[in-house]
């Protein structure tokens, strides 16, 4: 097995934010005593006046973000994804989305990446929670290049955005030369295939690619689609998968029946209903490190490949 280099996307986020802040004095950061976990240390050093750490107060944090936007600034509001979303959901709905405030919500360390810190710290519900809110783009970069490109896009767009910034180490998945690595509203087909399509987001994209390799060994040709804008979904790309392949598997580090899985399911059903399997955690996690938990929930290359075989009716191994 080739050991690829992997990255914590928070580093790319932090680095790009500092770079952008040099060029655009309107960029500010807001956080909830999360300078360290949001990787805002360098930002704090370079722009001490432009970091608003409100302490442990997520409702205040999001409201302050909306206020900063009102004053003409471009706030990046950063906190652990679960606290940012669970604790300030009404602020996200009313102050940001319904007010169309120019706020960039950055949910750090989402999914199961807090591992043994337990379900109170896992952010697996966030995609369901945020997709339900109108006018709130939900963006989930899959690797460092996408993270940087997504931040750049967000900074340059007037309006609310939620960015899900992964902590779990991921390899590069963006095709070299793909520039920009992220295009708002567009999914990218990372591998062609005819039998089944694996639709993945965030940390699951690299695993989907590995799963496709495993499936190839079994003679199954699997397409891999990286959905980095979970809301609004790239309906065309999903519709193409439904029309051109015989099965669809979705994989996400989130509750699938309200997250990516549900979004894809709707398009598949409206296009050409083919069998689907939605992978993702559906229960509170047991104790364990992130790698263990991903295995527990079958969010591995093996698990994805197995699901694809099952849904194709080929699981008689």
């Amino acid at each position, binding site marked *: 097995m080739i050991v690829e280099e992997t990255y914590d996307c928070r580093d790319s986020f932090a680095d790009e934010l500092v770079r952008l802040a040099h060029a655009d004095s309107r960029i500010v950061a807001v956080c909830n005593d999360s300078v360290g976990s949001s990787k805002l240390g360098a930002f704090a050093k370079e722009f001490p006046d432009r970091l608003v750490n409100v302490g442990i107060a997520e409702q205040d944090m*999001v409201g*302050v*973000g909306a*206020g900063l*936007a*009102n*004053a003409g600034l471009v706030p990046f509001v950063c906190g652990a994804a679960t606290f940012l979303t669970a604790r300030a959901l009404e*602020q996200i709905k009313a102050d940001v989305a319904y007010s169309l405030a120019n706020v960039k919500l950055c949910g750090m360390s989402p999914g199961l990446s807090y591992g043994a810190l337990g379900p109170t710290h896992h952010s697996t519900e966030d995609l369901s929670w945020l997709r339900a809110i109108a006018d709130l783009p939900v963006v989930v970069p899959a690797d460092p290049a996408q993270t940087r490109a997504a931040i750049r896009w967000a900074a340059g767009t*007037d309006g*609310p955005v939620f960015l899900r910034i992964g902590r779990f180490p991921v390899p590069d998945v963006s095709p070299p030369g793909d520039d920009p690595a992220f295009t708002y509203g567009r999914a990218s087909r990372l591998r062609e295939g005819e039998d089944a399509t694996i639709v993945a987001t965030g940390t699951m994209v690299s695993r989907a690619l590995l799963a496709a390799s495993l499936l190839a060994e079994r003679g199954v040709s699997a397409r891999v689609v990286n959905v980095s804008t979970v809301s609004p979904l790239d309906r065309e790309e999903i519709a193409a998968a439904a029309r051109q392949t015989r099965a669809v598997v979705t994989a996400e580090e989130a509750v699938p029946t309200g997250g990516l899985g549900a979004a894809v399911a709707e398009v598949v059903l409206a296009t050409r209903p083919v069998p689907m399997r939605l992978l993702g955690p559906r229960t509170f996690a047991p104790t364990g490190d992130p790698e263990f938990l991903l295995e527990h929930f079958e969010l591995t290359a093996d698990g994805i490949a197995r699901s694809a075989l099952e849904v194709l009716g080929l699981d008689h191994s």
Partner: protein
Amino acid sequence: MTLTQATGELLLPDHEAIGAWRRLRDRLAHADRDTAAAALAALAGDIRRTVISTIAGAGLGHTGGDLSVTDILTTLYGAVLRIDPARPGWPDRDRLILSKGHCSVALYTTLTTCGYFPAERLRAFAAPMSPLNGHPSRRAVPGVETSTGPLGHGLPVGVGVAVGLRLRGSPARTVVVLGDGELQEGSNWEAAMTAAHRGLASLTAVVDRNGLQQGARTSDTNGLEPLADKWRAFGWEAVEVDGHDHLALLDALTAPRGDRPRCVIARTVKGRGVSFMEDRVEWHHKVPDAEQARLALEELR
């Protein structure tokens, strides 16, 4: 970004009303206190009457809180806020955030007296596809800085505005108008703490202290006293004034400031100005019928 809310016709500035409002502001700038008091009282009377007829016409509204907050809004828009209703997006405008967003009709009406949009448009309050829904939407209503309605949202936003304006070197001030029952929401205390920590001397909170919330007296629900002490312990200046005395409000809102945010606790009467509504909890969101509206308008004449 596409707006998914259909907002019907846009609300555009009413230049005639803007002219009248500008003349009022000029007059007040040079008036003695008695003249100023009379002018503001007249304006407040106009607003109260329009509030009653708008709510009665629409069959929807929060009559009690509209009438208790009227003098606060009148003083702010009539004599305090540095705004330009022709340019609601002017970067250096003072910001007014009505955190008790259920009192939208008082706000909408006050905005029309400044000319943000024509008073006739109030007739569409709550009507299908109207920009004027039951709670103020930033998308649809010029002069509305942030959408409110859920309580406890305004002060955090106000803190952000004040931090942002300071960062940008703007002299603009930020005022957040809060309900008293609303102060039971912890989000306010998060924001209060942040405001004090950051020494936001350009931020003012005005509490409409009418002693009633939706279902009962605040003191019977979850008592707020000693309220001024709470704000002081959270690092704010706090003053208490008669919330129906325009000059007292004016003084409290314009007094020289130290390095701290200020809370003006405005003692008010819910339903103020209409005898059968005053201090009666049921008028929180009761809508006057035709006869009640007639009586109310008579009393407010």
